[in-house]
């Protein structure tokens, strides 16, 4: 097992590609006949016997033309991959159980299109892509996530059987892909605001009741907080202003590990926390996250939501999962 692995590593150069973009050189493109190609060869052999037996000169010509076509197809199938440049893109995190899409930017510098490029991770669904001549495009390679955590999907299998389907050329580029998979959210009612909080406000609305002023927008601010009227008035400046609300510490919602049902397993409790985060975010609450050993201060917005979910995703493990 280890020996085959070593052999594969040597032959297919399966190692994370440090140099970007990845350029498919002849050293890393492999080519073998497809089952259809083998059938083609057998058909040619039978036809040759027939042509010899019946002394068909034109039959010989036909068979030789087909054999030539097979050889030419080999070159063309190889060139369909040769010189292709690949650059991995940023991967959007997903929830466990969903399809993660790993974007791979393809660059075709040659004057011919490259058709029927098949991308897949090992044991994962395949996506077929046609790349126009002298163009760039991004293909999203699917990967069915199962568990939370950081995912290294492993090498990409990039194959093609174009133009004639008689041969299959493939390569194993290994772009440095990584994707954070959040726990699959379990929706349960939000916990009550943390002890000591003033409860005269409905907790979901806390933080947005009292207008406190304007400040320049930061990326993490939700777009719905932009003070469009104020921006329109002060058209001379390029800065977007957001409304600030006076929300006291009393309005903060703490999503605490200790509040999740103790009788559920660790993964389920993380899932419940994920559900809470989604619910709190939907209600535009200010929320913080407490996990054993770490704590994220209350805040709101997309960045905050992402860092909370990532903390759940990576909880208890720092090593990557999945992949090969």
């Amino acid at each position, binding site marked *: 097992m280890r020996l085959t692995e070593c052999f594969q590593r040597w032959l297919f150069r399966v190692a994370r590609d440090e140099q970007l973009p990845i350029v498919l050189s002849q050293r890393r493109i492999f080519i073998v006949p497809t089952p*259809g190609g083998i*059938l*083609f060869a057998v*058909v*040619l052999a039978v*036809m040759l*016997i*027939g*042509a*010899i*037996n*019946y*002394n*068909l*000169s*034109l*039959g*010989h*010509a*036909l*068979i*030789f*033309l*087909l*054999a*030539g*076509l097979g*050889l*030419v*197809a*080999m*070159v*063309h199938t190889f*060139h369909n991959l*040769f*010189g292709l440049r690949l650059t991995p893109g940023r991967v959007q995190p997903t929830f466990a159980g969903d399809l993660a899409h790993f974007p791979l930017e393809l660059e075709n*510098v*040659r*004057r*011919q*299109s490259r*058709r*029927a490029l098949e991308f897949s991770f090992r044991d994962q*669904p395949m*996506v*077929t*892509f*046609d*790349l*126009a001549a*002298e*163009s760039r*495009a991004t*293909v*999203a390679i699917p990967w069915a996530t199962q568990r939370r955590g950081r995912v290294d999907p492993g090498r990409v299998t990039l194959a093609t*059987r*174009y*133009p*004639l*389907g008689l041969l299959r050329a493939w390569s194993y580029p290994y772009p440095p892909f990584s994707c954070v998979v959040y726990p699959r959210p379990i929706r349960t009612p939000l916990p009550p605001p943390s002890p000591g909080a003033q409860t005269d406000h409905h907790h979901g609305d806390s933080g947005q009741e009292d207008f406190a002023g304007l400040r320049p927008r930061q990326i993490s601010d939700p777009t719905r907080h932009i003070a469009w009227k104020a921006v329109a008035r002060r058209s001379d400046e390029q800065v977007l202003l957001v409304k600030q609300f006076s929300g006291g510490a009393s309005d903060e919602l703490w999503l605490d590990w200790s509040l999740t049902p103790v009788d559920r397993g660790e993964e389920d409790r993380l899932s419940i926390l994920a559900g809470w985060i989604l619910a709190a975010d939907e209600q535009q609450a200010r929320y913080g996250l407490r996990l054993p050993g770490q704590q994220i201060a209350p805040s709101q917005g997309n960045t905050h939501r992402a860092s909370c979910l990532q903390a759940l995703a990576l909880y208890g493990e720092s090593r990557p999962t999945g992949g090969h």
Partner: protein
Amino acid sequence: MGTRPPQQLVEHAAVPWLLAVALATAGPHAGHLPLWLSLLVGGALLWRAWLWFQGGQLPPRWSLALLVIGAVAGIGWQFHSLLGKDAGVAMLVVFMALKPLEMRSPRDALVIIMLGYFLLLTHYFYSQSIPTGLWLLTAMALLTATLIRLHGGAQPLAAIARYAGLLLLQALPFMLILYLLFPRVAGPLWGLPQDAYAGLSGLSNQMSPGSISNLIQSGAIAFRSQFVGELPEKSELYWRGPVFDAYDGLTWTARPRNAPLPAPVIEAIGSSHAYSSILEAHNQRWLLALDVPTRLPPDSSLAPTLEVLAREPLRVRSRFSFTSTLDYRANRSETSEALQQALTLPPKLNPRTRALADEWKSRPPEKIAEAALAMFRNQQFHYTLRPPLLGPDAMDEFLFVARRGFCEHYASAFVFLMRAAGVPARVVAGYQGGEVNPVDGYLTVRQSDAHAWAEIWLAGKGWVRVDPTAAVAPSRIEQGIVAALPAGEPLPTFVRLDAQWMRQLRNRWEAANNTWNQWVLGYNPQRQREVLARLGLTDPDWRSMSAWLAMLCGVLLLAVMVWTLPKRRPADPVLRAWKAYCMQLDRRGVRRAEWEGPIAFAQRVADARPDLAALTHEAAGCYAELRYGRGGGEQLRLLQQCIHRLPPQGT
């Protein structure tokens, strides 16, 4: 372009391609298939096309199975076998027609393509002419385009056609090399089905009234000869075929011999003529040579009756070299057995002819022959393709009542008379004359030149040719069949080609065909050795041939590889100049970030290196104008000059 939806089934839009493949490969077989089968094939393809057009469901598999069983039973009934050549082709055609009706997965599509290749091969059972060869290329282009369409998804038709053409063009040199060098094996590898050589025409191994006049209706070429020296006179061109020495009252045949006769003895008197002939296959052992051959091609022998016999029936068009002498003495000391056979007649038949011959019996043999020829010449005998039907006493009716006949009538009547008068005689069938094709200089002999004549044996002279037809219609021998026959005879038009341009066109076509036949169809193991020897590869065996083959194919593959190497457009000169300028600045300590625009970069340079500010501003301005504005060649030149105007490094 972009992501394609996954395909579990054959794409709807790809189905017409596969139907076109089925039509193109099975369709041309309609000519030699029974009508019901052609209708079935056409119906099945139309049905499938209709289903495609309507988006309807394919029929259930059991109904197709029933259809296949029915068709196979029909083929078995029609051809009395499922294994012969014609039955096999019919089966392939049926499969090809029905497969699209159960075509679901890409694998089914692949089966159709492979069936298509097989069917293409089967066309050459029936014809290997130049048009068939061109059809090969067209059909191959269609099949290749279909494969491209199946694997490459939807593309403009022109793009598919261009790519298929390119692939075929690149495959052609491989074909030529393989054709030339692939070690040829002389077939057949095993016994062929009985119908393998049906339909080959030519002289038959027997002669009865009408057999030659039927043959001359055909304008097909029997053989073509190329003479090394002078072409002999047309009236001397007697091409000897089978010799018939047994007569049963209706049909002349060659008598089977119990013991082999001694080899013939030929004394050549005149000069000899060397020539080589390309004989069309006629499925008989005799090879047509000028009377009489003195040097024979290998693997053949001279029969006691002077015809050249090959070891095997001639089943493919082949080339043979002969030397013949036109003036000769043959078998001056003939065995008594042969002479006895040359005198044998069926008893009782034709009393009037026998009576006439009895009158001549007392004369010397030469005089007897002259008397018979004089009778043909001086009495009212007619040379015609439409002789009346003759009864049991055929010779009596012919000589004394009808007096109308073709060469076989005259030859057999003459031989009958000779035998009845005690002169040993026999019938010789073959061809007489021929026509020189001015395009390539070959003498073309057609089935319409088929002829029959007589030979008598004279003591001291051996076998002497006597052509009674020459007595009746001398122009037959001197000018050919068209001149000899009166107008209105049912000669096919291709024999009577009067128009000069048509004759020329035919000559060119036949010369092209001759080249095709020699180079393409006649390329057998022996020809391959000759050609390779001419290329400097003397006495090649399969090992050296394979080595050459592998080497040449490797070189070709490399050439194709270089040819198809991904071609890049030359780099944009504007971008190149700008990058070169930025690289120079990099060396001087200011590096442009990848994302940095020209103006922003110029601003930064102004802060870092005030001495370079003005120049960089100019360069960035040129670049921005070229890239985003309406800059032209002037700006590009300025930008390129900026690079050289930079002060040297370290200042």
